[in-house]
């Protein structure tokens, strides 16, 4: 699935240069469940950006299948994100003015799926996360766990190959945390998608088949 070769990422902040990733070599197989841990500022989110085609490395190459994410133009990257990659964020990142149903539909918008088909798929996705009856609710009318379920439905409605999650349970209580993790792991099992989860939580990390730790921009297997 993923092959990263000599990936480095540096951020230049006025006078200071931050080495967020230094010479990372990594490959992730199809359908793997990978947990990424590490201290704050270690480079977890930066690595996830490289995997998700949200940003390009300062040097090195990032391959997703045959596509070289590190070299593709913005327009092509957006296309790959739209088709193949699902994102789940710590802060849910729902559009506050759109209903749950409409939020899920935003993921189908760039795929050119129109009207009836779109609303049917969005409703199915909401049902699969247990929110069949909450489609018309605004995010502000849903609990944190429910919001994250909507976000997971939005990530999965396009039937992606990869699901990237950055601390998906960071804002949730323990009980909700387990519900969400079971949901994600279920999707991984049932659909065979590749799941990469960034987490501070060792109990979550232990459930993954492969654990990585990033410290000072360097990746180590555990």
């Amino acid at each position, binding site marked *: 699935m993923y092959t990263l070769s000599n990936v480095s990422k540096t951020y230049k902040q006025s006078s200071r240069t931050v080495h967020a990733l230094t010479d990372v070599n990594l490959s992730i197989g199809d359908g793997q469940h990978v947990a990424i841990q590490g201290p704050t500022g270690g480079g977890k989110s930066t690595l996830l950006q490289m995997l998700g085609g949200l940003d390009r490395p300062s040097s090195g190459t990032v391959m997703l299948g045959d596509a070289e994410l590190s070299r593709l133009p913005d327009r092509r990257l957006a296309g790959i994100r739209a088709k193949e990659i699902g994102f789940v*964020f710590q*802060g849910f990142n729902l*559009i506050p*003015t759109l209903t749950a149903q409409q939020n899920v539909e935003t993921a189908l918008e760039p795929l050119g799926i129109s009207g009836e088909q779109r609303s049917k798929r969005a409703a199915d996705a909401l049902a699969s996360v247990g929110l069949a009856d909450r489609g018309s609710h605004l995010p502000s009318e849903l609990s944190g766990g429910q919001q994250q379920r909507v976000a997971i439905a939005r990530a999965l409605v396009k039937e992606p190959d990869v699901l990237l999650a950055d601390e998906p349970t960071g804002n949730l209580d323990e009980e909700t945390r387990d519900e969400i993790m079971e949901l994600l792991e279920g999707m991984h099992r049932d659909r065979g998608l590749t799941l990469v989860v960034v987490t501070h939580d060792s109990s979550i990390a232990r459930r993954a088949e492969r654990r990585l730790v990033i410290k000072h921009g360097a990746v180590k297997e555990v």
Partner: protein
Amino acid sequence: MFFTYLRRELAGRRRQTAIIATGMALAIALVIIVTSISAGVKNAQAKVLESVYGVGTDITVTQTPTAPTTANGGRQQFQFGSGEGQTTDGTTTVSRSRLTSGPGTATFDATELATVSGVKNVSAAAATLSLRNVTFSGQLPQRRQSGTDTGATGGQTAPTDGTQAPQGGPDGAGGSAFDVNSFTVLGLDPAADAIGPLSAVTLADGRSLAKSDDGKAVAVLDADYATSASLAVGGTIDIGGTTFTIVGTVASNTADSASASNVYIPLDMAQSLSGETGKVSTVYVKAASSTDIDQVQADIQKAVPNSTVSTQADLASSVSGSLATASSLVAGLGLWLSIAVLAAAFLIAILFTISGVTRRTREFGTLKAIGWSNRRVVGQVAGESVVQGLIGGVLGIVIGIVGVVIINVIQPTLTGGASQSSFAGGRGGAGGTGAAAGTGSTGESTRGTGGGFSGRGFGEAARAAAATTNVVLNAPVTLSILVIAVALAVLGGLLAGAFGGWRAARLRPAEALRSVA
């Protein structure tokens, strides 16, 4: 999705929508009101000009006035010989009327009419001679033999029959009562009725001048003047010492206004009585089409050197009174206020849109992260701005139309005077230089009964006598104003959308991962 998202954004962020739309609405309303008043003032000016220059006059040609070269050039003088007037009971009554082109009026050769008519795209031309008739009448006390008049008191000896003679000074020049009466006279070609001042009037009584009136002492009077001078059709009026028969009265087409002149007479009569034989003061020109006016103006200027060739637009600047104030107010303050408020509204829309995009950084980053193209995100931002502008535009049209309706209900009246160019240069002559020598030839010696009178400041009088018109301001709202208003609103929205979209386009999709603040 585009419309759903847009609708939900505008409904969900009502405050921003309200502020942007309100700013835009006020600006658009102001533009509509100012444009409409400006159109109303232009119409009013055209009405005033019409009452003076006639319907359909596109261009007038006058001679550039030159400073008088002769000593008497700038003033009028009445001279009475000693045998002048009727003497009864020791008082001499004199009366003399004189028809002149007046100070400051430049005349030019009537043959220039043919030159003007020959210019390309001139469809009609007519010449007029603008004159002023001044009647001097008064009573002079008669002086006794100088030899008997030795008393230091020098008083006038009362006539023995007891009639009251005016009291005078020792030299007999005082104690006189003079009356100066003047009115404007316009000589025009009776055959050319399609253009010129008489094309803007309606017949009130009698008949208008006809072609057969050439060379006849007939006059048409302005109805208002006729009333004020107690004259009527069938009566007579003394013009330049000749008795004219009044054949008709005319009233201006515009309510509450006088027509261009007090009296209208055939051109040839005007020329011969004023001594301006073969001269005219103004040529009225109608162009074949309104698009030809500039060309006709330039060609006439070339064909008739030293002439002043004015178009309606030039003439509009000669309209005075509250109309002129309104015109300059609309053109100056109104225009700049509109531009300033419009610029402020645009700026508000731009700033609020940019700050809105900044607040939604994570939202747009997320949309980009889940695969929305830059184009789609920018289109969404621009779409929201344009709709906000349109809401403002529609609101502005409603407010603007309400404002215009209020103006039309109030019906402000504007007064406009248009002084005809031929009278414009009012210059008075030098002060009365006193007596011309009038020596008695009769036995009863009367010294100093010959009197001189020098007119002063007739130009001013003429200016004051020029037509004054009250016009009710009617502010029209045309479809084009509304189209412009909507276009401005869309432009404002697009501008704000362009800035907001530019900002949104620069957002990195990685912003989606920024930790929650």
